[in-house]
């Protein structure tokens, strides 16, 4: 068999980590990216990357606790073996990034410094100023450049992935991509393909994500037969700054370093915020969550902001979801650590957040869902079998999915600073899996008939020509704005079935109108209009997956919150009624888990996605209620612990009768 070749699509943290590990093993990689890889969306990550470290270990922390925080934070929707494996790798990954020269902040002895992020009580987050993602990405970019010099990596930047190439038995044998300058379409034959295309924030119009995060690549894999899992789990970050083209993130590190969230107790108090005395400020997160304070997990912080602004009408700006994030009490040294993000605020708002509390708003931020991937559990470690060809493999044999593009690691809600970890981890970890997969191949890409590749190129060329020539009266940018609007309004923080139905109907209408779009640029050179319009078709497909998933899931879990299906907290004052209420609460909790502790899996059908449900592997850490700040948390936990001990936790209430 000829020398093996892997195509990696995407040069964010995940794609670059995979590329460099494959190159190290002597495998040649064609690296495809819509933007120069150094400009990938990962540069935006500000806050940091999690792992257990020497300092947290002294306080009793362990890989197991990191694992526990991650699945608890994710509301138990993750298959546990991959998460366990990732947390075990955490310390090694940070060490490697350190060796690659990442300018992590230091302690006085020259060790790496760490800060605290949401959803944990430990300072697990290593950081490089307020530009951690940028620093990590550059370190990997530099290594890939090194391999490029050695001839093991060929970069194709400003090339757009159009779709996988499957042989007659459905095995992935390469991809088709288009040069975004010359517009030429060609095939990239490969023995295996690794997709690392990131998230799909643009489905929601504006988000904290970059312009390339369209979901275009995900939609194309989905249409080719890869299933999409947990689409409805979309993280809305509690703190962002609104903008006309993007919602810019104000990193959780601002709270990790001591920033406090509050609103004036008097609705829309017009006084200068600093002149409002402490007694007239409502530090609602600190009051409602004494243990975690400002660092509750993101879904909870976002919902509390929603509650304060909508139900209590305390928004700083009327009709919006706006609260103060106050850093004015922090000292100069702390401000310095946060310089990167404070500058962003200053640049876009023309206000200095060191002396004036920031006005912040929730914004769509992260896609927990993604293309479905397999794994192989190691019975001994309860993690993964190292190098198993099944790990990270999609439904399409030979096509692997890593980074934000996969669905595996964050369940119902991602903890801050866990994504950079999952991206680098999956990139590093997938390489030996891909190598072993390729070893098992009878025939390589080089053995495929040229007609296989020609046919696929021809198909995409035809679609391209059709889209260019499409004559209609619809404007793709208008359709995108309407899509973003309906998705943001109805399918984000608080979800009601009636509203989701409205969005589903709207998406259908938009998909219909999409057929009549007309491009204002019909040229054959650097046609960005074309690229965007093509991705819009994929966004509409993903929007359906997301909205249908949300519609069908009649429960609250992680970022997916439906008030109509929330279980009311025990509220009685006398102990015995309280106990009874807690028992009833746990019954409903068990019932809901038996129905909904399932991965949503969508499969593409021309007439619309079809959903089914898959069991979640939770055998290492038994499911337990997520009770951050819940009234009656203690008694619920007590009842639940007793049920776990007696093995009655898995049975729904009905089964007990």
């Amino acid at each position, binding site marked *: 068999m000829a020398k093996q070749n892997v195509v990696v699509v995407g040069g964010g943290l995940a794609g670059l980590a995979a590329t460099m*590990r494959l190159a*190290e093993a002597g495998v040649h990689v064609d690296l495809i990216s819509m*933007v*120069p890889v*150094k*400009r*990938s*969306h990962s*540069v*935006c990550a500000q806050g940091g990357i999690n792992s257990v470290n020497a300092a947290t270990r002294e306080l009793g922390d362990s890989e197991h606790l990191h694992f526990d925080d991650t699945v608890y934070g994710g509301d138990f929707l993750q298959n546990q073996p991959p998460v366990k494996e990732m947390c075990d790798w955490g310390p090694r990954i940070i*060490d*490697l990034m*350190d*060796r*690659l*020269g990442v*300018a992590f*902040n*230091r*302690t*006085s*002895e*020259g*060790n790496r410094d760490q800060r605290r992020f949401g959803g944990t009580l430990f300072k697990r987050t290593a950081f*490089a*100023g307020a*530009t951690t993602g*940028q*620093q990590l990405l*550059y*370190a990997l970019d*530099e*290594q890939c*450049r*090194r391999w*490029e*010099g050695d001839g093991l990596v060929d970069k194709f930047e400003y090339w757009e992935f159009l779709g996988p190439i499957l042989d007659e038995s459905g095995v992935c044998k390469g991809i088709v991509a288009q040069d975004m300058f010359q517009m030429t379409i060609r095939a990239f034959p490969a023995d295996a393909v690794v997709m690392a295309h990131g998230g799909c924030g643009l489905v929601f119009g504006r988000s904290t994500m*970059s*312009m*390339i995060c369209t979901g275009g690549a995900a939609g194309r894999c989905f249409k080719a037969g890869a299933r999409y899992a947990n689409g409805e789990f979309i993280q809305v970050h509690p703190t962002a700054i*609104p*903008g*006309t*083209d*993007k919602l*810019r993130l104000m990193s959780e590190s601002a709270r990790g370093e001591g920033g406090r969230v509050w609103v004036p107790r008097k609705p829309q108090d017009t006084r200068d915020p600093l002149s409002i005395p402490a007694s007239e400020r409502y530090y609602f997160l600190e009051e409602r969550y004494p243990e975690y304070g400002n660092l509750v997990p993101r879904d909870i912080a976002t919902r509390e902001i929603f509650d304060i602004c909508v139900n209590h009408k305390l928004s700083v700006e009327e009709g919006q979801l706006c609260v103060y994030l106050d850093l004015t009490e922090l000292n100069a040294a702390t401000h310095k650590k946060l310089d*990167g993000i404070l500058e*962003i605020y200053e*640049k*876009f708002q*023309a206000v200095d957040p060191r002396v004036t509390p920031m006005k912040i708003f929730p914004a769509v931020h992260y896609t927990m869902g993604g293309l479905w991937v397999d794994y192989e559990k190691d019975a001994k470690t309860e993690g993964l079998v190292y190098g198993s060809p099944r790990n990270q493999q999609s439904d399409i044999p030979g096509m692997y999915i890593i980074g934000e593009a996969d669905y595996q690691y964050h369940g119902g809600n991602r903890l801050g600073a866990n994504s950079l970890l999952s991206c680098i981890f999956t990139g590093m970890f997938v390489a030996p899996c891909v190598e072993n997969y390729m070893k098992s191949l009878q025939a390589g890409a080089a053995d495929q008939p040229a007609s296989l590749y020609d046919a696929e190129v021809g198909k995409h060329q035809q679609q391209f020509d059709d889209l260019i020539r499409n004559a209609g009266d619809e*404007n793709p*940018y*208008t359709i995108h704005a309407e899509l973003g609007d309906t998705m943001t309004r109805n399918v984000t923080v608080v979800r009601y079935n009636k509203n989701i139905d409205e969005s589903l109907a709207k998406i259908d209408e938009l998909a219909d109108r999409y057929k009549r779009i007309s491009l*204002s*640029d019909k040229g054959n*050179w*650097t046609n*960005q*209009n074309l690229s965007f319009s093509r991705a819009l078709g994929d966004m509409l497909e993903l929007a359906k997956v997301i909205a249908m998933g949300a519609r069908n899931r009649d429960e609250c879990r992680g970022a997916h919150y439906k008030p109509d299906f929330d279980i009311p907290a025990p509220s009685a004052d006398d102990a015995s009624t309280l106990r009874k209420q807690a028992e009833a609460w746990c019954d409903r909790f068990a019932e809901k888990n038996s129905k909904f502790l399932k991965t949503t899996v969508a499969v593409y059908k021309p007439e619309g996605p079809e959903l089914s449900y898959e069991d979640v592997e939770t055998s290492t850490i038994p499911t337990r209620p997520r009770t951050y700040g819940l009234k009656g948390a203690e008694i619920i936990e007590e009842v639940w612990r007793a049920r776990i001990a007696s093995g009655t936790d898995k049975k729904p209430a009905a089964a007990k009768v």
Partner: protein
Amino acid sequence: MSKKFKVAIKRQDDPNGASRWERFEIENEKGMNITTALQRIAASPVTIDGKQSTPVAYDACCLEEVCGACSMLVNGSVRQACTALANTLLENKPDEITLEPMSKFPVVRDLVVDRSKMFNSLSRVHAWVPVDGYSDRGAGPRISQHQQEDSYPLTTCMTCGCCVESCPQFHPESDFIGPAAISQAVLFNEHPIGSFEADKRLEILTGNGGIADCGNAQNCVKVCPKNIPLTRSIAKAGRSATVFAIKQFFEK
């Protein structure tokens, strides 16, 4: 805040085409930046005289000045379009805002230019830490807080090209690697492990297109959006290049 404003854009259809100016009128929005203005044009590419045109091609990704993609000449000065706020620009020059592609790189189309020369310079100066491999070998070297503070600013270089655009010594025909690459060479030469390849970098810095080409005009440092102390890097590079050249001379 004016309700509408004018944008004049220097357009070019392809690398060999002639350039022309096109003017658009944009509805102003609170906090609007130049990348939004370009998005609004894309949605409705009709010029000020009612002529149906095409969306303006431009490069952008992060929209928050960390990816370096969107550098262009805004009112004649090089900067990122995503942090260029319309109202601030209009305060200084109310009649219209002008947008042009950077002049030191080949134009691909409209405001998109080809900056591969900058990335190639990074390869030339071996801008990486030469680690043995990626398996577990424990943590990296200890780094003092002082050194971290020194190197951190250099690591934020996003290869945006503003510095080379402003540099009189950098132009399409010159070999000069430019201030950004010099600064990266310094960054890695000062890293405890990066320094193991210091001589390779110094060879480039003392060779053709190296540090000697810098005329010390100091334009670069003034336009760097990340406030990277480029002239300090250049001075450091100059000193070690001199020492290196002398050493080479005696070792011959």
